[in-house]
């Protein structure tokens, strides 16, 4: 087994297991911890895809900022634990899981039926080049400058909105 396949298997298993854990743990802090693990393994998967910049940004933005915010809110409001995943509404939840599994099978069938690998001819050099910060930066600041500015405005609006919403009394 080559190094690439080994890394893929490890990270993919970690991502899948931690995703399930996020949904099934009754304690929100533990769920948040598993979500961080999930982001970490996703960053590893991005590295196997040669997307260095996105892998590092994933850690900085998601694990380093967004999840800390989540933990901060969880600790501030201390929500009581929910009951165990299957303790209440067992039938409805099992139905949801069953339906999700059914859709997954459908998606997997469609993906395998469409057979994208036959139409792609991946090129290692092009893929490494696509993941560098230079090529992403060039695209962001030339072709996609308008969406970039729009994203900036979106963040500004979100900051103001969050301030207004979370403030105790707004005079």
């Amino acid at each position: 087994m080559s190094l690439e396949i080994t890394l893929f298997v490890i990270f993919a298993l970690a991502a899948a297991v931690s995703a399930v854990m996020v949904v099934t743990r009754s304690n929100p802090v533990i769920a948040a911890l598993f979500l961080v693990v999930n982001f970490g393994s996703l960053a590893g998967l991005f590295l196997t895809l040669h997307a260095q910049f996105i892998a590092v940004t994933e850690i900085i933005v998601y694990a380093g900022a967004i999840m800390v915010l989540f933990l901060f809110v969880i600790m501030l409001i201390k929500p009581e634990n929910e009951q165990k995943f299957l303790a209440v509404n067992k039938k409805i939840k099992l139905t949801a899981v069953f339906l999700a599994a059914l859709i997954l099978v459908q998606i997997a069938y469609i993906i395998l039926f469409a057979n994208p690998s036959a139409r792609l001819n991946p090129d290692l050099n092009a893929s490494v080049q696509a993941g560098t910060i230079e090529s992403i930066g060039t695209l962001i600041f030339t072709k996609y400058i308008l969406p970039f500015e729009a994203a900036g405005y979106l963040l500004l609006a979100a900051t103001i909105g969050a301030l207004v919403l979370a403030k105790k009394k707004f005079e």
Partner: protein
Amino acid sequence: MTIPIEYYLILSGFMFLTGVVGVLTRRNAIVVFMSIELMLNSADLTFVAFSSYLGNSIGQVFVFFVMTVAAAEAAVGLAIIIAVFRNKKTVNIDEINILKW
């Protein structure tokens, strides 16, 4: 590039559906939010996989924008949760059902 892209796509589908199940079954608003992040991330994985196999950065630029939107969404969403919690003393979405207070 020895791994077929299908594996990445199926993993992404699995994570997305896990997120969907989380949104549908969990009652804690914060966990529902986390499940949404999970779904966004599975979409990111698909984008990056295709971008890498096509050898073109546009997918990764798009992931960058998804991250911006996710950050904005998390900030506003958590602010809403705090505001709701201040009024109702709960974040259980079954009890937040009167659309006013």
